[in-house]
């Protein structure tokens, strides 16, 4: 039989064999891979696993936190797994059975959804009320700010294409919308004027991606003129080398992100949460562009910030969720699926 005929006969077998070999090699490889996650020491939490479920934008900071935590005594030998996505989506996923030991969301309602079945009622009874990081809403623009955006009112000019996530799934979206809405109030306007602003705002929205991180990706890949996002996400994007600038408007909203451990979590998860809230952990948050929850924390230089030596300038008029009466009230008033102010405006603008 001619050699090439033999080859053709055997080719499918070779393909199957190659696949098998790949599997075996990969199996061998994965044993090595766990070394990166575990060091040889025997810490008190060695061998335990922590499943992190988080909203979409803090992946870089949690990667850094994991690396640092694994070097500590409490963190030696701990195995991490993670999944990040839109805040609302991830919260509902945990409520539907996705495994989680450490959860962090963009806003409190996504956390309270899990109380008490998955997260203990006492989750926010500590000194920071369960919050782990802060930020403010900023307007990201193309490099060089070609449209000369200076604040919220520039956004409703005709032809400005806005990218902001979808409030149905994204936490970032809700912060953005609240900031857009309350900036009018902060300047002395009425609720009616704020609603008018929001209507014009939504007319200019061209894309509503599912999450904050998706919105950044959509903007980076070329859609839209401006991106409304967290300050930390704008800084994070610049750290990743994305070509954008960001403007901190005169009026903005204080973003507060909660974090907690679940009822079924291990001691390692508890230790990780404590680490994240410690000075060391908060310094890592700051280095990735998050504003620390402790106002007196020392902040080093932050690459990617507009001014790395003064990365977190004070916002002139900062509204907080407390000013509006807390999240339960705000969620119902603004984002209720049938009667929310924002829902109605969104539906009207199609």
């Amino acid at each position, binding site marked *: 039989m001619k050699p090439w005929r033999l080859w053709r006969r055997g080719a499918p077998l070779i393909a199957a064999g190659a*696949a098998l070999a790949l599997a075996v090699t990969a199996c061998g*490889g994965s044993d090595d891979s766990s070394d990166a996650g575990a060091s040889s020491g025997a810490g008190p939490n060695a061998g335990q696993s922590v499943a992190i479920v988080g909203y979409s934008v803090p992946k870089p900071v949690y990667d850094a936190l994991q690396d640092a935590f694994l070097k500590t005594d409490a963190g030696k030998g701990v195995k991490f797994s*993670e999944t990040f996505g839109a805040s609302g989506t991830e919260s509902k996923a945990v409520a539907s*059975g996705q495994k989680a030991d450490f959860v962090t969301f963009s806003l409190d309602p996504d956390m309270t959804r899990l109380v008490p079945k998955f997260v203990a009622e006492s989750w926010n009874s500590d000194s920071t009320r369960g919050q782990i990081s802060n930020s403010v809403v900023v307007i990201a623009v193309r490099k060089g700010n070609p449209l000369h955006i200076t604040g919220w009112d520039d956004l409703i000019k005709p032809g400005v294409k806005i990218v902001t996530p979808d409030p149905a799934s994204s936490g970032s979206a809700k912060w953005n919308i609240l900031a857009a809405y309350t900036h009018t109030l902060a300047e002395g306007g009425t609720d009616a004027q704020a609603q008018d602003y929001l209507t014009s705002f939504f007319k200019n929205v061209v894309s509503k991606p599912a999450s904050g991180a998706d919105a950044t990706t959509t903007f980076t890949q070329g859609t839209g003129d401006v991106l409304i996002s967290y300050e930390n996400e704008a800084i994070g994007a610049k750290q990743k080398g994305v070509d954008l600038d960001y403007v901190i408007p005169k009026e903005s909203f204080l973003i507060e992100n909660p974090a907690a451990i679940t009822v079924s979590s291990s001691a390692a998860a508890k230790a990780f949460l404590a680490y994240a809230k410690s000075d060391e952990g908060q310094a890592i948050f700051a280095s990735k562009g998050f504003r620390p929850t402790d106002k007196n924390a020392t902040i080093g230089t932050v690459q990617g910030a507009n001014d790395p030596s003064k990365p977190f300038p004070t916002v002139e008029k900062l509204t907080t969720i407390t000013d509006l009466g807390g999240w339960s009230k705000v969620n119902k008033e603004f984002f209720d699926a049938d009667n929310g102010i924002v829902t109605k405006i969104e539906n009207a603008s199609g």
Partner: protein
Amino acid sequence: MDSRRSTQLIRRTIALLYVGVLVLVPLVVVTWKTVSPGPSAFWKAISSDQAVTAFRLTAEIALASVALNAVFGVGLGLLITRYRFPGRRLLSALADLPLSVSPIVVGLALVLVYGPVDGWFGSTLDSAGIKIIFSLPGMILATTFVSFPLVLREVVPVLAEEGIEQEQAARVLGASAWQRFLRITLPIIRPALLYGIVLSLARSIGEYGAVLVVSGNVSGADQTQTVPLLVGERVQQLEPGAFQLAFLLIVVTVLVIVLVFLRRRENESKHSEPPAVVLDDLALSAADPAPTALALDRAASNDAASNDVALDSVAPNKGGLR
């Protein structure tokens, strides 16, 4: 004559341009984007823990899925071609159904049945500690679903045409069913079976949408990201290394196609009849009941002469010239 030459050239040019622009240019661009960051970036992209785990997961899922589809493909093929029972034709049509279902619908369907909270079976299974959705079994189910008929469609035409007499002869001579299968049927279907396995393997390695929905997209210690899912994540998270992984997948795809192509050319020279459609069989998201339905038709009508659809449909149309 000259105008004929020029029409031929025009046709050729249009065809080549179409294929070139649609396929070649993108492949060249991707190759360039893969190699321009350099070999160390390439190595980093494919050797990270996440990537290695993704390779392992993809291999496990693909092998499980292919094994299941091979077993049930041959089994169903034998049942459909060797036996008569009410609903045989319906079964054959239903078996072809998965090819034309959108991958997102596949994922949703599996979540609705096997999901841990509201799933029809899932809630009971979950309390028994069996996790399907968000876990490996669910991903295997999803991948098996989308590639279900690929082996079946390859072996049915062969089973319908060949081996019946030998099997019956063996039966008369006293061979048991298992012996008949091993000694007679299996060797006859072996080329088609291997071909179907290769197709099924390619499909299983590359599945994205269905696995995305059922897996929960988890990375880290409990990773549920296959290689395609990891490509998707790296793109969405603006992380480097997406092109390198994608490039590997492209290489695997091209290898599979070349294998398939060579196998078809071999069959073509062996049987000296028009080659069956190469990618008819790889019709991943569309139904083509031709092999199974027509096999049934042929078996039923005893028409040994009209062996090939192509010949049937080509009989000259006598009224055509007017």
